[in-house]
């Protein structure tokens, strides 16, 4: 375990989610789940981010924003699709203005389905993301 997975800073973006999953993400930061135990901080700033949490099915309005945020995050970075809408579009999949999941716009590493997602599932998803973050960092070191 290197410093990459000991200090994962997250960025949370709501890409037209109903707020259900967003509330669960915030719940994970409260004293009940306290993800700061693992060094996780909600940065709200792409320049400082390691793990990108995206909720919602992504509509026409915010897919540019989503792409922009993704591009601003320095490597190594991991994208987690939080909730069923972010994973596949969910019940909104066939709507005229919904892209149908985050992976239609940016590459996604971890899918955490659920409506809304449970904080325990979310933390499990982030732990998975940490493993991928480690691999990406190792790959980055090798490229050097």
């Amino acid at each position, binding site marked *: 375990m290197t*410093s990459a997975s*000991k*200090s994962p800073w997250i960025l949370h973006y709501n890409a037209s989610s109903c707020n259900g999953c967003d509330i669960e993400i915030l719940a994970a930061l409260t004293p009940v789940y306290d993800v*700061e135990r693992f060094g996780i901080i*909600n*940065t*709200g700033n792409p*320049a*400082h981010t390691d793990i990108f949490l995206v909720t919602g099915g992504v509509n026409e309005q915010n897919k540019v924003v989503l792409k922009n945020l993704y591009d601003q995050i320095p490597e190594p970075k991991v994208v987690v699709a939080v909730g069923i809408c972010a994973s596949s579009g969910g019940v909104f999949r066939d709507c005229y203005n919904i892209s149908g999941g985050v992976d239609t716009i940016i590459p996604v590493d971890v899918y955490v389905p659920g409506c809304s997602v449970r904080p325990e599932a979310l933390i499990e998803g982030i732990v998975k993301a940490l493993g991928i973050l480690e691999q990406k960092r190792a790959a980055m070191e090798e490229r050097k």
Partner: protein
Amino acid sequence: MNVLLAIIVAIAFVIIAPLLGGLFMGCDRVLTARMQSRVGPPILQPFYDVAKLWHKEKAFNNPVETIFTTAYLVLMVLSGVMFTTGGNILLMVFALALAHTFLILAAYAANAPFSHIGAERELLSVMITEPVLILIAAGFYMISGSFQVIDLFKTDGSGIILLPGIFVALCFVILLRLRKSPYDISTSEHAHQELVKGVTTSFSGRNLAKVEIAHWFEIVILVSLAILFFTHLLVFSAIMIIVCFSLLLIIDNVFPRVTWKMTMKSIWLITLFLGVLNLVLLGIFGVLL
């Protein structure tokens, strides 16, 4: 102080200060978490954060950021070295101001609104800090008749007894410089607020790590400035630091952030009233002592 000893002290400072500063930040985060009935991160978390940032991809808004943040770190270290080798306190204060100027330039270099707001507020906090630091230098000069830190240890007068007003002003400035509530105007501890990360918004990777390390140095420099008030009661100063640290954490957790106007008014009033009055009284009655 002979040259060899000065070099050894300087090297020791460069190695030990960031360790102390980082541990201080770690304790801060753990204790703050406990106050909010959370478990909190490991005590070494600030070191993990910096190690991670060091290995991130190099990405910047503007390439000059790297030069400015490096200058910020170097000047901060220089200021600390001047201080610990018993050098000129006035020069140290100016080096500290110059260091912050580079941080502000780095933040202005990025074409980002949050970064600019942070830079403006950092400028304000330098403006608030400087008068107090100059008052400290002036006060120590009145006690020891010299701007050299080393001479302060040779005089009979004790800082805390002769300059209590300036000491209180310094405590407020420490609160401001550590960017703690209610004076966390230029950035926020964790970016849950309207400023995102203020002055550090646009930095990432190594540049952010440098700013973080410079901040650790700054903590040590400010705390050692406070210790200078206890040159004859060094044991007492340890107790004082623990008391001040606990008080700082409680204040940080209890108070919301005030506006920058309120910050300026409150700290300048304290500086003017307690600091200047202290110097005037010392000037009038100092002859009798």
